[in-house]
């Protein structure tokens, strides 16, 4: 099977870094934002930021697919 492109993987690494490995940096109560403890605010933000990153990854993958199809025909 075709492997995913590097660009798409790099975009996907951003949410991983933001919500998984960096836990020690954001697992705190202050500063409170909109009344939420910081950790809650941070993770909720990533529910919206992850689709943004993945949308970029999607653009990269589909562009690659189109290019490949063109190559195949030519």
């Amino acid at each position, binding site marked *: *099977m075709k492997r995913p492109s590097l660009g798409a993987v790099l975009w996907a690494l951003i949410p*991983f870094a933001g919500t998984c490995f960096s836990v020690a940096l954001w*697992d705190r109560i202050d500063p409170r934002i909109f*009344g939420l403890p910081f950790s809650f605010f941070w993770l909720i933000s990533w529910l919206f930021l992850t*689709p943004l990153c993945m949308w970029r990854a999607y653009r990269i993958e589909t562009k690659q697919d189109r290019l490949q199809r063109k190559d195949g025909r030519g």
Partner: protein
Amino acid sequence: MSPSAVALTITFFIVGVGTAIGFYAGTRHKMTLEQWTVGGRGFGLILMWLLMAGEIYTTFTFLGASGWAYSRGGPALYIIGYQPLAFLVSFFILPAAWESGRKHGLQTQADFFLVRYGSKYLAAFVALLGVICIVPYLQLQLTGLGIIVEVASFGGIGRTPAMICAFTLVAGFVFFSGVRGVAWVSVLKDILLLFAALFVGIALPYIYFGGIGPMFTAVIQAHPNHLMMPGATKNLGHSWYITSVFLTAFGFFMWPQNFGASYSAKSADTLRRNAVVMPLYSITMPLMLFVGLTALMVIPGLSNGDLSLLTLVRKTFPPWFLGLIGGAGALTAMVPSAILILTAATLFAKNICRDVFAPDMTDQGVALLAKAMVLVVTAAALFSAIHSSLSLVSLLLMGYAGVAQFFPGVVLGLFSRRVTLPGVFAGLVTGFAVTVLLMLSGRDPFHGLNAGFLALCINFMMTGIVSYCTPEEPYRLDAAPAGLTHAGNPYAL
């Protein structure tokens, strides 16, 4: 009418409507094996979204998450952490899995192992392990249903009769409707769940504290450490969070039912777009955590955190509203249960019984056997639900640790040409052995790390080492399709 009668009537009404939708949608298509298991491979973006949401937002979303916020605190954040990442991982795996599925006519996860590694015994082993992991997950759903009926009846109906009742309903539902019916019931379930989560998650903190912010202030004052990891636990700290998020994000689409669901998609692009938007749907999860934390302040001292959401709803709202929430909760247990049962039954009938013991069985024979297996699988889960008292999240984590062990076989199988049958087999056996050993001896978390994660690392190492020490094998996904759906396929020899 007494409060319990009102609540139960409404709950059963909602369940009845859901079941009717399932029957109707299911009977409109002729039920071949392919239609029953993968819906004829024709699901577009919307139906696919519904099917995935149907599998993902389960009783666990509803009761387990609030239960953990109530009893554990900070560590419950892992639930908001892993869900977006699980979809992110699926973005890279499912389209490739789908391509191979369409090319070779695959219907189950074990079929993938059969074609990729060319061994019906490995496939049967994968199917067996899949079924074993499904049982605790199914048990989780049945326990959740039992809790709902117990609370909605104000303790009038015990949990065991409630679970037996639920068991009959779910088994009948799967029997007649197949995967398409299940996806359509998701429509009703998701609308109800979304409404219930939004309303309850915002209204409950507002009623008791005047808002979500003041609710958090109250929790922080009363329990200064509850909201930070390890919260109310001793050993669920940051290293546990990282390893658990990792394990669940990578394990998520290794569940046989989630992996198999990708075969129902119309195209690989459907799966990619689905992966991009799905994280938005997790917005219900923080709301469930808010409810659990509100309950911690309002009704402290419950013996079982999983009861917190419904008990608080019962205390706050009139019985009809409890019935509504109960109905939504019951559907969120029934839809995933149906999918789990369907998957386990198909795995058992197709990849174990036919491929190993009766290669001449026709597709119709397999479909019949699968339907009979529906009863066996449900009964097993019911039996273990009645005889166990684990919390909902613990059950879930146990199943995850198991299914995550498929990850090396799937990912290396898709993207590496060097991985071999002995390598995958050795990795799988070691991974499972380590998981079972650590879990059964009560060593999860192991020195602050998720036990399943450790097992996965060892599994990867074994797969790699043994693959390099064994002779190279052909990359069978490129081979001409063998027509798996017909008897006499070369892999089943």
